[in-house]
């Protein structure tokens, strides 16, 4: 029998597919081995996908498609599931093959220039324009949303190393010195903290010298509210989650991304155990099985610090039965500061906010009742319990109660975190806590609550700054990030910066925010705004967006139209 010849018909139809392999992208054995070597042995965890992506991105300075396909195979995930997560986060440089099938090499070094509002008024634009030519081809220079060091604006980050009050020369010197990482600076370590009476309170709690009811009552009496921006009463939250069925989880939000906000970092860099003790007290009072700390990726030194201190804590636990504590690393997504988006991200998914109800207190992380807190809220717990609710509540001004940690940046003489009475006015804050305005600058406007909180004119610098006091003005205090603008700035430019930020950071899930921020950005790029259309757009974004990002995104635009009409003439 003659072996038959197979008829090969080339009918010219390019869609007829002759495949030498199974359908789809094949996993490259070398890429597989490379990825395998970066990952822990044993079964890989779906919820650690973002962590694994970090491992690859750190090692290869990018996420090449062959590595993503390999990771998918190792994790028994679909390639799309890995890709959609990888491509969601700005800090992952996802690279596909070119037409020749080659993956372009990663840039040797990346310099990120913060273009947050505080850095922009401090000259980030000029820096961004100058650096590429100065640093040469091997260095990639890109703009980055607020990196959370607004007190030292403008800031450029050389790989992971922040250059404060950056000018082109300083950045070039940092690059030349090969200074690309960031070590923690001096802080109160475990020994010092314990020597100063630290962890005594949590021991008292766990060993029965205090009861949960009493601790919760202190929070309630002090009227401690969530300090991430939403201001939900902390004590009530503890009660709600405590009443839910076990196992319950705790998620700590240190994804401090609201432009102008840096208070969490400020405290964490100085006194991390005060926060950890607050976290342990919360875990005890609410009955928490495991705590997850979500730290924004930009805070590299804080990550090192927390890893170190958590290890130290585990090595010498101040209390028996330390709950399981996992530190998770964000990957460049402002929206992950939204509580449910953060939960999604901890679960290893795209950081897309969930629809509520159900609320995270009932169905949160891994579907369990979850106590979610901003860093600072927990940071206050020890001090409140030790000093009493009355001490805290007695601190306010203009009829308000408590203390607020204001992150102040912009045109003031002494920017930084200012612990000041709740209800203080902007003018008082600048004059009493910030050394007044910068030389040659006169107060023109201010952002009372970061990018989301709106823009107020100097004429309204005497209203109390606190939760609930700014709503009548179409603004809110949020995370108490105050950015001060002067006569050298324009509200319209600030609004463009902020809307660009929201457009960049919208997760893309819902129409009003995904399409709305993009359309708003185009509409306000023109000299003459279509104000009726912007007003309509603003309405649908406020009413119909899934989360606070989209709901608050029109605030700067509305404020310009309301308070700065002369700029639109």
């Amino acid at each position: 029998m003659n072996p038959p010849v197979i008829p090969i018909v080339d009918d010219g139809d390019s869609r007829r597919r002759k495949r030498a392999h199974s359908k789809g992208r094949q996993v490259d054995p070398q890429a597989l081995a490379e990825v395998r070597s970066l990952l822990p042995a044993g079964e890989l965890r779906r919820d650690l996908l973002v962590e694994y992506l970090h491992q690859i991105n750190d090692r290869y300075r990018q996420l090449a498609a062959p590595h993503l396909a390999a990771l998918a195979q190792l994790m028994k995930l679909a390639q799309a599931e890995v890709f959609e997560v990888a491509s969601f986060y700005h800090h992952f440089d996802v690279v596909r093959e070119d037409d020749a099938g080659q993956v372009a090499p990663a840039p040797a070094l990346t310099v990120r220039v913060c273009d947050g509002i505080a850095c922009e008024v401090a000259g980030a634009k000029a820096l961004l324009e100058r650096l590429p030519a100065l640093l040469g081809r091997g260095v990639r220079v890109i703009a980055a949303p607020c990196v959370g060091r607004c007190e030292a604006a403008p800031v450029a980050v050389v790989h992971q190393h922040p250059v404060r009050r950056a000018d082109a020369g300083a950045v070039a010197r940092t690059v030349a010195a090969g200074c690309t990482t960031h070590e923690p600076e001096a802080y109160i370590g475990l020994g010092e903290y314990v020597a100063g009476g630290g962890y005594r309170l949590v021991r008292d709690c766990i060993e029965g010298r205090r009861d949960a009811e009493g601790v919760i009552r202190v929070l309630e009496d002090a009227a401690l509210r969530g300090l991430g921006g939403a201001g939900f009463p902390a004590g009530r939250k503890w009660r709600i989650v405590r009443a839910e069925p076990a196992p319950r989880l705790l998620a700590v939000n240190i994804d401090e991304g609201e432009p102008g906000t840096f208070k969490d970092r400020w405290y964490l860099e100085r006194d991390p155990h005060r926060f950890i003790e607050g976290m342990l007290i919360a875990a005890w009072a609410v009955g928490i099985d495991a705590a997850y700390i979500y730290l924004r990726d930009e805070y590299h030194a804080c990550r090192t610090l927390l890893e170190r201190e958590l290890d130290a804590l585990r090595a010498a636990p101040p209390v028996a039965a330390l709950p399981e504590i996992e530190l998770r690393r964000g990957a460049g997504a402002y929206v992950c500061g939204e509580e449910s988006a953060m939960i999604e991200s901890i679960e290893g998914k795209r950081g897309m906010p969930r629809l509520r109800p159900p609320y995270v207190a009932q169905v949160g992380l891994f579907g369990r009742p979850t106590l979610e807190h901003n860093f600072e809220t927990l940071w206050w717990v020890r001090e409140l319990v030790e000093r009493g609710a009355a001490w805290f509540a007695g601190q306010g001004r203009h009829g308000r109660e408590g203390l607020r940690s204001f992150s102040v940046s912009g045109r003031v003489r002494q920017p930084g975190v200012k612990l000041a009475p709740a209800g203080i006015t902007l003018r008082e804050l600048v004059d009493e806590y910030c050394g007044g305005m910068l030389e040659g600058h006169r107060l023109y406007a201010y952002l009372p609550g970061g990018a989301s909180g709106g823009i107020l004119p100097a004429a309204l610098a005497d209203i109390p700054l606190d939760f609930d006091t700014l709503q009548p003005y179409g603004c809110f205090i949020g995370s108490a990030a105050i950015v001060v603008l002067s006569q050298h700035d324009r509200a319209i430019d600030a609004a463009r910066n902020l809307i660009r930020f929201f457009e960049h950071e919208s997760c893309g899930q819902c129409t009003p925010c995904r399409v709305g921020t993009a359309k708003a950005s185009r509409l306000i790029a023109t000299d003459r705004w279509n104000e009726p259309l912007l007003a309509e757009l603003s309405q649908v974004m406020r009413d119909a967006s899934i989360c606070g990002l989209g709901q608050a995104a029109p605030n700067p635009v509305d404020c310009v139209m309301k308070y700065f009409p002369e700029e639109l003439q």
Partner: protein
Amino acid sequence: MNAVTRAERARLQAHRVPFTLDGREVEARAGESIIEVARREGVPIPHLCWTPGLDAAGNCRACMVEIEGERVLAPACCRKPAPGMVVKTDTDRARHSQRLVIELLQSDLPEDAYTRDNEVDDWARELAVGKPRFEARAQPAADRSHPAIAVHLDACIQCTRCLRACRDEQNNDVIGLAFRGAATQIVFDIADPMGQSTCVACGECVQACPTGALADASGAALLVPEKAVDSVCPYCGVGCQLTYHVKDDRIAYVTGRSGPANEARLCVKGRYGFDYARHPQRLTVPLIRRDGVPKSAAMVTDAAQARSYFREARWEEALARAGGSLRALRDRHGAKALAGFGSAKGSNEEAYLFQKLVRLGFGSNNVDHCTRLCHASSVAALLEGIGSGAVSNPVIDVTRAEVVIVIGANPTVNHPVAATWIKNAVRAGTKLILIDPRGSDLARHAHRFLQFAPDTDVALLNALMHVIVEEGLTDPRFIAERTSGFDALRENLRGYAPEAMAPITGIPAETMREVARLYAKSRASMILWGMGISQHVHGTDNARCLIALSLMTGQIGRPGTGLHPLRGQNNVQGASDSGLIPMMYPDYQRVTDPAARSRFAAAWGVAEHRLDPHAGLTVVEVMNAILAGQVRGMYVLGENPAMSDPDANHAREALAALDTLVVQDIFLTETACLADVILPASAFPEKSGSFTNTDRLVQIGRRALALPGRARQDLWCITELARWFDLDWSAYGATPTDCDAAAAAVFEEMRGVMPSIAGIGWQRLQREGAVTYPCSGDGDPGQRVVFTDHFPTPDCRGRFVPADIIPADERPDAEYPLVLITGRQLEHWHTGSMTRRAGVLDAIEPEAVAMLHPLDLEALGIRPGEALHIASRRGEVTLYARADEATPRGAVFVAFCWYEAAANKLTNPALDPVAKIPEFKYCAVRVSKAAGAEGAPASSV
């Protein structure tokens, strides 16, 4: 019995939630969202991302409504009403949001329409949204890389309906939502062109897309069909219901319809494999072999070339030649000189009438069909063990199971929609145990994947049972009350400790122990199997082991608990039920049973002696009998043994040796090449009839197209041939082009002789579209789950039958060192006669491929894509190498659909002694690089 699950009971008992909708007092049923209540109440709320059948995503925000006391609006699709809630859908504020969302989306839609039904445009009209006032986005380029589906993301509104269809529904996990913000984009795999992605073209995304961003590549979404005909899919045994959309007497496109087996899902074959009926090679005229054209196995070639062997004939002449020759052979050589192969692709009525013709007209029981080649061993073991060859539970019961074992089956390829239920179950927490020498797409979803050595099924299954006995995990009460023969089984299992079987099966003993425990201890375990179990010389033994496994643990007879041999063809269950089996009348009544004979003689109005008391010949036995000169004439309806029989060269030689071969088909198949008379028949969408799926669900296929040329209805052809055997079947009322009434008449006759379907009247079937048997009467809903309190055996008990290791008939050796495994590929059905003539399917898989592990290919010095040569002791083929990590080392997999490289030329016709099924899953072959084949021109075989 059909027990109501706890979840269902909870749903029934749950309180209704009263609330106010646009000023009206209404009630929500448990679990209903506002939009669902509004739909029931006739209150229109705009919606895009929400669609019935998919989980609500709440992302488009077109359905925002005002809820009294809430700060912002709420999405009606996600929000569940609370008691006393006051919901307003039509306030200025709500309407403003609804309109503006539509306007924002519409502002980014392209000028060109990709579908007639763009839901954004529909709602824009409905809400009187004017011309969008926003500037359009920069638009992405089109992706036309896939043969079936065109991707136009300029029309995408990021609603993720396609993603949910792909991921949540079909679990194919190809589509992702990547990037962020305004750049958010639907992607395939790693943002690859769809045509180069892992997409299996089920088309669920197309069905889900509201804007035509994903649409059939044919442009069908822009056509205005003249009619829509509800029918079922003509391919596999899952039995998906579908709708044919017809224009100009052609099927323009197909949509999934909500049937019990598919709930509107389809796979690539069902959705895109419909145009074969209008292929230019379609037989439209009766053909008679030209005088002087000899018949030989070597003449089997492609249809175009084979056409020259035949001349056109008028129907009268063709029928006279066919009927006259067969009649003459019977008269001269006796009843046993004739045989008939019916088809599992035909309707129940065709199958029934065909076997009736053979039994009454030809005068013997020489009637069989391809069930012999697929599940004969499963059926034999099931009949022996539990008295019924059908499944105990429908496939969809996997969603109620805690543990599902899939063994020797590749459902993502062969039963794709069934596979979606398995994957859905896994996502909901069911543990899947995949047991197969070959990997498959299911492996990724499996809790444990046992990639055991080919041919060691009995060793593995006995080891599992050994563990169950040894560790006391049996169900003693079930064994005592419902079974017999356990002691002998237990005795036999002694020698099968997993530790002893580990070296044989290649599976660690501890893994076998773990799997045995999982299966035995679970609340509800189901076993599904396919031809990897049945197509061995020990196929019956393999199935016996699975039955014993379920009996000893009592894992049968409850929802989510039982045995399911996945049936291959769309009507293999029905064709078997209808009596296309040499040893059984309809409803599995044995021909050797005098009582059964007398029942059928009475029903058919003939004297009892007219019915042959001996079992007839099976498929492979018929071929041998032809070469032995015993069978001389055959009538083959819709079967293609020249491709589907093992040792195809031998089968072709046999067919060529027939005095008369009459083939009734829609294409000039490899079998028809050897025919004397070819009757051009009706394609599936050209006729009406009932079809029984793998779940024992009887469904209706409806005529959607006219017959082309002078093609005729199959039922009519059978009744015409019957006249040559003195059978007057005119009373059925078959006409050449319309047999709808005849099908009804035949079905009603079947009900009379088949107690299992007694309760399924033709009218009821038309009305309900799908009825499960056993069904005893009009009011009987049919039994989805059987064996709940007894088995249909003489003593009502299930019977344990021990099995021991029997090696494959032909083991690899130095000369033929590799194992050949045959089977199917996703896009091509069976012998390829239909699917290789379906444009999209052929474009996706255009050429013959053999799959080998990449390392084996490397060892053989063959690069993926190069031509390779496979030889066995029986034949040889040349085809292209495809690297496939799922194929085990030392094995080569070839589908039997390639006429130019017929895998069955290689296979071993050795038979299972009980069921007479050939060993398609195992024979020894040699693989080498083909010399100079690449790029060579077409030539004859």
